């Protein structure tokens, strides 16, 4: 079987995969990083969003072998030394989740979306989160959370 080597949340990892193994399955089943969710089979829901070299992508829509040599960050890699990332904190403060299933993907997409921009309009945020579906919240508090998170991140 082929092997793949990448950096996940700052640690170098190597694993055997099949050609067809999706990045999300490598993360969940081999590395047991189950914070990254699978919510659909059509690459539409965004629950599987992770960062590939700092950019949000859908890990169900990429082969594990395509991530050779890449730096991957999952939701588990956002908090530093037990302190939540400002975007995670903003989701908590603004009640930006209900069941929480979409949340890891929302947070990862949001962090990528607001990079370099601390002031986003509601409209920009709603359009920016096109690739993430939430079945619970009605999005209202998610938008509030992303706005607050962007401000807390200060354009970083």
């Amino acid at each position, binding site marked *: 079987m*082929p092997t793949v080597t990448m950096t996940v949340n700052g640690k170098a990892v190597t694993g055997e995969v*099949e*050609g*067809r193994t*999706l990045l999300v399955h490598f993360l969940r089943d081999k590395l047991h990083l189950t914070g990254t969710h699978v919510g659909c*089979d*059509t*690459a*539409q829901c*965004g629950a599987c*969003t992770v960062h*590939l070299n700092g*950019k*949000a*992508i*859908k890990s*169900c*829509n*990429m*082969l594990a*072998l*395509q991530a*050779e040599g890449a730096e991957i960050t999952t939701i588990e890699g956002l908090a530093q030394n037990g302190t939540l990332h400002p975007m995670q904190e903003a989701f908590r403060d603004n009640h930006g989740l209900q069941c929480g299933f979409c949340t890891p993907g929302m947070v990862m*997409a949001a962090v*990528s*979306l607001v990079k370099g921009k601390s002031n986003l309009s509601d409209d920009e945020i709603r359009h*920016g*989160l*096109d*690739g*993430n579906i939430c079945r619970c919240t009605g999005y209202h508090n998610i938008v509030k959370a992303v706005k607050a998170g962007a401000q807390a991140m200060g354009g970083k």
Partner: protein
Amino acid sequence: MHNFAFHRPTSVADAAKAIGAASDGKFVAGGQTLLPTLRQRLAEPSDMIDLSAIAELKGIKVEGDGITIGAATTHTEVANSADVKKTIPALAHLASLIGDHQVRQRGTIGGSIANNDPAADYPAAVLGLGATIRTNKREIKADDFFKGMFETDLAEGEIITAVHFPKPEKAGYEKFRQPASRFALVGVFVAKTGGGIRVAVTGAGPGVFRSKELEAALGGNFTADAAKGVKISANGLNGDLHGSPEYRASLVSTLAARATAAAS
């Protein structure tokens, strides 16, 4: 998804070799269309040849009087490129409307064009601007490249390396988005070029096409009103649960008018 052998060449020459050696090989770049297709088992390649590690396929350069975009350049890179925004703002705008945030960071221009989905955005820009598609074998004019639904002039194993877009005097793109798929229910690219007016329509028919009626109307008078007044025939246009052929026909002139108004 069925299993396959995976190859990750670092040069176009090696990619061509790999596809030549495969019994039923397929290229993958961003994979934003191909991976869902594989998961539905609509394709079962023996070998997947990943083009995303080939540096020579990436990047955006100002070249002559236009812009050359490497085939493996992502939609986000095109949308954010200062050179594209300056030279052909309508192209950057079009790239910013494709799919969603995550899809744009993986999907590539070469993949979009090679796949030639009848509702994809890029074919409208390529045809509307009269771009040239460069491959590892030759150059193909946009007017000869698109052959109808999911069909192009590419030969088996031929690799798109870049697309060259000549700078128009003015161009605009407007899209009526199908909100679930984010593809164009209809999208219209209008361009005023040295060689005349070009209008390319995506989403409305079995493949991207030029609208002679709109080109004639805008040729005399490049204004939104001129486009708005054109009655497009619904004959041969797509009809589905999202919109009838008549509805799409009406969208074509409406969007052409908006694209003309927005053209810069």
